[in-house]
């Protein structure tokens, strides 16, 4: 199975949100990283067929997904950025409604709902009104909905927002296990969501995807660009306006500042082991010839 973006562009009035994106995805987990307003949600919506590209097309095994229509949508599971509910629906109603929309057999749907409720930890809450759910519970319900008919393509937009650390780890494990023989596209601005599970990570900004690499490749790219600098707290205030800082730790009477820079930022600076988060900051804030955010 192969999904291909072919010169996909999208404008909202005069604003260019996607600028001729071309990429190919196979099975596995794909992370889509980028700051807010980068165009991630627009790209995800086009893939979920709830939005049409202005130019270009998306192909599933060489066929235009728009032309495939129902056949394509039967293959996808989609968790939108904002999960919405009808006021009087319980969690069970919501999942049964989603199953009906996906054309699932009733008995199969019931069985699957029970399974997924257990997986996302909502087995005791399915009888409650969705409106009474906490943000995390609503998110978990949304994840269960997306997984209902075990779709071939799973599209998740900010799936972990509102989840606590335990739920986040649990979610990552679910997705990792699920992604075998399937395509999972996970859009987020939280680096740790994709760091360990994504086979390929796409960095997106201003409607383009300049890099699609593995986590290791990104980290390798950062060799010699991450530094630890010690400085007094008073100096930090001024320094942080001039440098890309990925972390600050107070250590006694001074601060240990983690700086992203291609050259040694200070005489006493020592090199540190890079992480994906460093790469994220490097790409979006410190590319040559690019304005800092």
């Amino acid at each position, binding site marked *: 199975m192969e999904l291909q973006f072919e010169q996909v562009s999208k404008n909202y009035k005069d604003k260019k949100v996607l600028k001729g994106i071309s990429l190919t995805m196979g099975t596995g987990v794909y992370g889509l990283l980028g700051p807010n307003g980068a165009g991630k949600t627009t790209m995800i919506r086009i893939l*979920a067929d709830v939005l049409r590209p202005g130019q270009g097309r998306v192909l599933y095994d060489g066929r235009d997904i728009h032309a495939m229509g129902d056949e394509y949508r039967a293959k*996808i599971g989609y968790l*939108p950025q904002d999960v919405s509910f*009808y006021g*009087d629906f319980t969690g069970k109603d919501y999942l049964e409604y989603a199953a009906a*929309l*996906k054309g699932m057999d009733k008995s199969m749907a019931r069985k699957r709902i029970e399974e997924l409720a257990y997986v996302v930890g909502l087995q005791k809450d399915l009888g409650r009104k969705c409106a009474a759910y906490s943000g995390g519970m609503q998110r978990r319900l949304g994840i269960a909905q997306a997984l209902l008919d075990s779709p071939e393509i799973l599209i998740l937009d900010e799936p972990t927002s509102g989840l606590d650390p335990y739920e986040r780890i649990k979610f990552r494990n679910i997705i990792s296990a699920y992604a075998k023989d399937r395509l999972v596209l996970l859009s987020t601005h939280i680096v740790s969501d994709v760091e360990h599970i994504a086979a390929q990570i796409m960095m997106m900004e201003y409607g383009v995807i300049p890099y699609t690499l593995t986590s290791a490749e990104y980290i390798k790219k950062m060799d010699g660009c991450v530094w630890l600098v010690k400085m007094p707290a008073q100096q930090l205030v001024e320094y942080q306006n001039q440098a890309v800082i990925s972390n600050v730790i107070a250590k006694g009477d001074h601060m240990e500042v983690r700086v992203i820079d291609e050259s040694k930022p200070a005489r006493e600076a020592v090199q540190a082991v890079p992480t994906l988060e460093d790469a994220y900051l490097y790409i979006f804030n410190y590319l040559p010839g690019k304005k800092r955010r």
Partner: protein
Amino acid sequence: MSLFYFELRKLLFHKKTSLLLLCLFALYSVIGFTSTIFLIGSNDSYRAYEKMAAVYEGSFDSEKAAEAERIYNEVSARYGTDSRMIARSVKDQPEIILAVNYYAYAQRVEEYWNGTPPESAEEPYGIALLKSKLTELESQGKQDTFAYGELSDALQCLTELGEPAFANILLWENLFNNWGEHMMQFLLFVPLAFIIAPVFAVERSSGMDNLILSSRHGRKKIVTTKLLSVLVASTVVVTLYLAATFLFGFLPHKSLHGWNAAIQSIPTYARSMFPFKAWQLALVGAAWLLFTGAVYSLIVSFISSRMKSQMGTAGISLVLLFVNVGLAAMGDTVLQKIQPLVDFGLANVTLIKEVFGAHKLFDVFGVSISYPVMAVFVLTSVAGLAVFGIYRGQRSRTAA
């Protein structure tokens, strides 16, 4: 559960709508009850009327007509000439109500034979007038014209129907007033607009569009199930209205008297050319309201499919209804210019008295077509366009 079950539940079977339906049923029942009580007063009065009317029922009697005219003149001097106003003013006096009704009947018999005055702006009616109009057209050699055909058809129908007979149709007249007056449009179509308005708009306002549009059945099947649920909802509301006004219109007097009388006995339907009995008109009228209710609901659904707000949808749907009612109330000179709009506008086409209460033919490429048939064609076409627009819109709809 099936998609249809959920769509029906979203539209009809939830707390707010159930409460609204309950209130509507109560309101319709009150309207049925009060209208029948205002007709004649107590149950005893109605029983007395029924007994007295039994003597008068049947073909025209000039002696009884003369006596009725005498009583009518006395009463009208005191209460005015409007028969309904008289009936309301002389409650619990069945003999007077009977005289007023018989006097009105005598006038209808006169009209049946001699017709409307030649200078009248109304459609030509009456055996003598129709014959004279036909002779006039024949003398001008216009036997092949649409007007000749229409008049000749009217004369044939009128001759076949025969002279109207007097019948006690008090309760049926009340029922048809409830089913066929402008008040019905407000009682029935206004709630319908509010109930149907969310059908598509709610998906946008709730943000559920994302889930629906990305799902397998979110583009076609969901439209079918939504439209089916709209038709069910419309049928439920109209049935509530029909059932409540029927039950509470007849129940207080525990009588269905007049069920087999010709509809020409009912003043509003005196000029109808349809050979219906009262019970047959009730069935046709009920079917007509169900049909027109469904068409209006589909129009509201179309508006809903283009809107983000439920209140906006209801607002536009009501404006559409009120504009139609306004057009139908325009003066004669305006009406002549916009006659097709008025004939097939919601205000007229939803009223059974307009569609079945007179003789109206349309010249469609030389073929004479009756008003009900044309109305069915026009309304079905409008409904078809609305449905087509909804399917097409959902196919290309995107999440906001």
